[in-house]
């Protein structure tokens, strides 16, 4: 009986935590990542997730030859620098921000429209024995007409 009483409470807690964590990511994305896109226009799409050290996310998107693009990948301060790798459809690496001091943004344009894949990695920096850190990671795209 006691378990039956506890179950709805835990379900509610789970829901509250889930919505709160996600709302924090949205607020982080809008406050910390969106400004990185200026002077490009944000496309309006939203990609954000809570990642823990050692975890990866991937994103697939088509990019067009008529546009100039800016990618912004932002991690919360609690996380170590977030690495992103850009690949073509055959998994060839085209760019990694590891070679650019983990820059949060990357400006690019294409001679022909392509589908690209982005691998976003939160590398481990915690000392052995300590618990890995988690935080929001936002991935946003800005565009403008190619001049």
């Amino acid at each position, binding site marked *: 009986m*006691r378990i039956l009483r*506890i179950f709805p409470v*835990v379900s509610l*807690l*789970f829901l509250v*935590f*889930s*919505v709160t*964590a*996600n*709302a924090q*990511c*949205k607020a982080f*994305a*809008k406050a910390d990542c969106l400004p990185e896109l200026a002077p490009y*226009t*944000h*496309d*309006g*799409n*939203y*990609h*954000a*997730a*809570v*990642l*823990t050290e050692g*975890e*990866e*996310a*991937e*994103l*697939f*998107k*088509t990019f*067009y*030859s*008529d*546009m*100039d693009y800016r990618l912004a990948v932002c991690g919360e301060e609690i996380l170590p620098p977030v690495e992103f790798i850009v690949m*073509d459809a*055959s*998994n*060839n690496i*085209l*760019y990694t921000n590891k070679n650019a001091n983990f820059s949060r943004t990357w*400006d*690019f*344009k*294409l*001679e*022909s*429209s*392509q*589908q690209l*894949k982005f*691998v976003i990695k939160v590398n481990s920096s915690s000392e052995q024995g300590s618990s890995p850190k988690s935080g929001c990671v936002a*991935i946003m795209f800005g*565009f403008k*007409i190619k001049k």
Partner: protein
Amino acid sequence: MLGNRILILLFLSAWVMTGCNSGGRKMKKESDSLLIPRDDAGVYEEIKKAEKVFYTLPSPLESAMLIKSAGAKFDDNLLNPVDNTRNYITNKSMALNLGIYTCDLSFASLYDQTQLIINYMNAAKKMADGLGILKAIEQEDIDRLEENIHNTDVIMDIVSQTYLNSNSYLEDNGQTAIAAMVLVGGWMEGLYISTRLIDLKDFNSNKLVGRIIDQKLSVDILLSLLEDSKGHPAIDEIIVQVNKIKLIFDKVTIKTSPIRPEYDQSTSVTVLKSEVQSDLSQEVFRELAVAVAEIRNSFVK
């Protein structure tokens, strides 16, 4: 005492699960292997490792921008009339038409159609409100729109913000199927407007034909996005419809040379250089245009 311990244990479990799982477009599942081309083991291994996978389509704003950049003319007859808002009472129709109206709004914005901009923002607001999306489009957004009605940059910023509010609300509240339908509506409207703006007399020289061919690259992404919500009756219906489009796009060939990234130091921009050869016959185009119109009209009826 025991009850308190159970409560604490369950509380911590909920916290850990939330911290690890929330916010992602999709958690990896074993069944995802079905989505990956079997002949590309490298990609398959990479994707298996990822905690979250995002499939993203051109947003309505981007679709409208692609149409404008191709030199197309504005035609308000192609837009979904705002009077149709009263017909949309199901979540499916409201979600699809939130995407459609946002695309129409973007299209009107880029061509300085001042009255249409206001009308379509209100239509999109009705759809967002109907879906219970809180604070997606507020009266102050509409007031700001009216105050800046001749400033395209500000209008694009408002459209982008309100669209972000809608899709982030849906994602954050676990309504991924509804979020996917909004994206599908916007994408289909962009494709519909593009196909309707093609005059076969200048088919070979029309830049917009190239942008339509490019949508072949997004069809598989779109299907992967929809597969995330497979089992949802409305999504299952849309998957059948999108598969019809895919079958036609399968007749279009796109051959691309390997991409050569070159960094331009003067602009700090990386140029992804490659050559592409594509082929879309008028016959296949006509087939595509008919199929797209059929699906889009089923969305707006």
